[in-house]
């Protein structure tokens, strides 16, 4: 993308990329654990007040990127600047600008919700007076007022994640990292989380989030970066990605395995995905009835019996199949060990 190249050049030229426009600027980020390359040259650029979603399967390098940007991990190469401050050399400066909400709620189980907020507020160097006031505000806003005096042990999963995010916001950091913020949440809690994230952005916060969910990226992100095997394989707005994948997928299941080849030949077109085991073909569509009619009549003419027809939203798998020619599950397998290694280290 144009922006990335431009900012990347500026990092190189000035050594410190300070711009009123860019909250996060990353250039050529690399990281390996022992012999395993997890990040293989990542360039990112997030404008102030926007949301960038890192989309990718397990082991793609999403969490590693967030850990480096939030000063938890040292990169092997490349540079990452948060508001112009280097995450390695000026880690402490960076830490006062960021909030981090990880995949697992990093709140203290034996403390109450209120105590968690107080503790982190003080560690962010807020004044006692200010902490009290902000704690009340956040508890109210996140609907945790009633539970505020209870230990976190008694909280539900959704409440924990909400508290976790509230804790990250106690010092109102201008930049927030969200690592799979809705993974494992039930649909209502998920909608609440999305709502909170949208409010944050409306108030001017810059957000970098990771997700495995196309819908989530679609709803929240101004820009989506798809990564796989530690590399960026595509980036653009949700609309731009959809143009390549289709805003909806038409899925057709053939009745007889013997006519699968015929069906394939008849429908053949861009973005056609095949699964011979389930006798299913899926293709990118804008969801029009016209296209559906056309496809069905073509199959009918060729004497192919159709068992089932459906429209569905594109998934991460569709994105991957279109962009890389393989599904996330195959990546996940090869990266399964990668993930395991990371945990061991």
């Amino acid at each position: 993308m144009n922006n990335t190249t431009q900012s990347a050049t500026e990092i190189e030229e000035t050594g410190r990329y300070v711009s009123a426009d860019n909250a996060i600027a990353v250039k050529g980020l690399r990281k390996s654990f022992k012999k395993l390359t997890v990040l293989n040259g990542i360039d990112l650029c997030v404008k102030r007040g926007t949301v960038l979603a890192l989309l990718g399967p397990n082991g793609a390098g999403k969490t590693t990127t967030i850990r480096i940007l939030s000063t938890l991990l040292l990169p092997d190469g490349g540079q990452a600047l948060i508001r112009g401050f280097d995450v390695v050399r000026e880690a402490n400066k960076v830490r006062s600008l960021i909030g981090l909400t990880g995949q697992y709620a990093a709140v203290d189980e034996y403390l109450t919700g209120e105590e968690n907020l107080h503790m982190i507020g003080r560690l962010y160097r807020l004044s006692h007076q200010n902490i009290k006031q902000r704690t009340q505000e956040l508890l109210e806003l996140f609907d945790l007022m009633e539970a505020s005096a209870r230990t976190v042990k008694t909280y539900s999963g959704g409440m924990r994640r909400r508290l976790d995010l509230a804790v990250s916001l106690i010092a109102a950091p201008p930049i927030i990292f969200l690592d799979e913020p809705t993974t494992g949440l039930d649909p209502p809690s998920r909608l609440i989380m999305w709502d909170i994230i949208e409010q944050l952005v409306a108030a001017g916060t810059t957000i970098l989030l990771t997700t495995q969910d196309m819908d989530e990226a679609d709803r929240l992100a101004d820009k989506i970066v798809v990564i796989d095997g530690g590399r960026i394989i595509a980036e653009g707005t949700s609309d731009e990605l959809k143009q390549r994948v289709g805003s909806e997928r038409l899925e057709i299941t053939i009745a007889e395995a013997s006519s699968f080849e015929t069906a394939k030949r008849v429908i053949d077109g861009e973005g056609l995905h095949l699964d011979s085991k389930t006798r299913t073909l899926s293709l990118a569509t804008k969801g029009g009835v016209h296209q559906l009619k056309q496809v069905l009549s073509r199959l009918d003419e060729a004497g192919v019996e159709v068992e089932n027809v459906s429209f569905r939203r594109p998934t991460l798998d569709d994105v991957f199949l279109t962009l890389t020619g393989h599904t996330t599950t195959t990546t996940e397998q090869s990266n399964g060990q990668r993930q395991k290694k990371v945990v061991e280290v």
Partner: protein
Amino acid sequence: MTIPSSSSFITANNVQTEKHSKVFWALSDSWVLAKRSIKHITRNLDQLFAVALFPIMFFLLFRYVFGGAIDTGDLSYANFLVAGILVQMLAFGANYTTLNLAIDLQRGIVDRFRSLPMASSAVLVGHVGADLFRNTISALIVLGVSFLVGFQPVAGPVEWMLVLGLAILFSLAISWLSAIMGLLVKSMEAAQWTGFIIIFPLTFVSSAFVPTDTMPEALRLFAENQPLTQVIEAIRAWLVGTPVGDSGWLGFAWCVGIIIVAMPVATWLFRRQALR
């Protein structure tokens, strides 16, 4: 739940940070995290009871089961035993730093702490401080029980102060060593048994439960010169009036030495470990 778009929760001008020196914040951070760990103790009393009950059980077993068969000269066995039991209790109590640190590292809360503009060593200081708190309470309980089974100290105010000082230093020394263990172990299970395999032999091959002179030569040499024995001998001397010899200053020297070495090593390990 509704969040008004214009709400103040995100506007930075609603946030007031305080300006203080680095030293002030290092102390403040340590205090904040020590308070956290102390709350863990008061809300999860199992740990406290385990730390106090174990030595009481040992105390009663040794006092009444083995005590009659152990020759401690003119000194009653109850009086002989108190110092050993106290030191063993402090050593086992400090092992909770290993366990709680391993738990923190596994749960990911350390990641949160490390993403904050705080002094990272405060995480360790917090756990070590909590050990001291837990050990103080356990020590009072153990001393209380010891009076019930025939402990008759001869210590004056100065001796009690010396006992207190050495006990605190010893607790800190073992806690910092435990912090290193907590940063090196790979699992919580390992964190639980490492303390036992190190502290059990050290407390038994010492003068905690029996006088060392009946031990085989090599064992006796080790037992008489290892740090636990020095600390035990010193505390025993001050409590019940046995000759103190070199144990007093040696006990202090061992503890201070261990702290001076273990503290920076643990802090370095913590930074390195977390960054990998």
